[in-house]
């Protein structure tokens, strides 16, 4: 399954809903989306990963790149994920210390940056 991306505005935050596979082939699309959002002045992002079926290190790299970009504007990037096999990837690579990970979009939006 390919990557699907939709965005919506929630107050001061932009929610990016990602579905499908984020891998070496599809990750560039996600990277472009994040770059476009930051270029357009969206510095507070919530990436909803509940529909993600596969994530590899290229995808992790894109998320880290997004985090670096929003931080450059004193923004934030929160993740929403409850899938154990995806969470495991963040744990193995130590990235749970880098990304705030929430169990719902509501929780992510309520979090103080």
């Amino acid at each position, binding site marked *: 399954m390919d990557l699907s991306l939709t965005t919506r505005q929630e107050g001061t935050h932009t929610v990016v809903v990602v579905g499908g*596979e984020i*891998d*070496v*082939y599809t*990750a560039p699309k996600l*990277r472009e989306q994040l*770059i476009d959002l930051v270029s357009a002045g969206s510095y507070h992002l919530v990436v909803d990963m509940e529909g993600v079926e*596969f994530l*590899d*290190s*290229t995808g*992790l*790299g*894109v998320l*880290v*790149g997004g*985090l*670096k*970009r929003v*931080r450059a504007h004193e923004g934030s990037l929160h993740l929403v994920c409850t899938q154990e*096999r995806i969470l495991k*990837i963040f744990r*193995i*690579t*130590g*990235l749970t*210390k*880098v990304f705030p990970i929430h169990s719902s979009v509501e929780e992510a939006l309520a979090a103080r940056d």
Partner: protein
Amino acid sequence: MPTVELHFAALPGHVRTARMIATAVSRRAGVPAGAVDEIKLAVGEACARAVRVNRRSNPEALVHVALTDAPETFTVVVSDSGAPGDEVAPGPDGGLISAPALLDLGGADLGGAAALGSAALTAPGLDGDPDADQPFPPGLGLALIEGLVDEVAVRRGTDGTGTVVEMTWHTGEPPADSDLDSAAYAALAAEIAGSARREA
């Protein structure tokens, strides 16, 4: 003898194909579902790395994948045709570096960063250009592999070129009595299943 061998052109789109084949072959081999997920991800990482290496140093060369299903193990060997040890960025003592340190993020554990090997610190992709085409430092894929695989060996290719990443999963016990022929084994399995049902 590998169960399945695959050669593919060094294009990112084929990594998914390799991943699907590894998933199908490991499932067919009876590997438990959790391990199938690990195999899928680790094979994807190893192939994505091999594709990058070949594209940089030998774009015409094919990436080679060999999957071997043995009674107690499932082994995947991924070989590239780059310079030996290309994109292998081990941390101190040959261990793998932590991602937050690799990614040079604010708030990352400085103790970990201080312990980094110089190879990691000078690896490409770390110098802060977020638009660089290489979206992550080379150690991250291997760090992930290390976390997913029961045994990993990274070595130089047999002809002196390229890098070979060998990944082995321990997939459990062989049949209790290997002298049983398959019909007898099936009958035994049915009997066990029957007694389990009766107990339930």
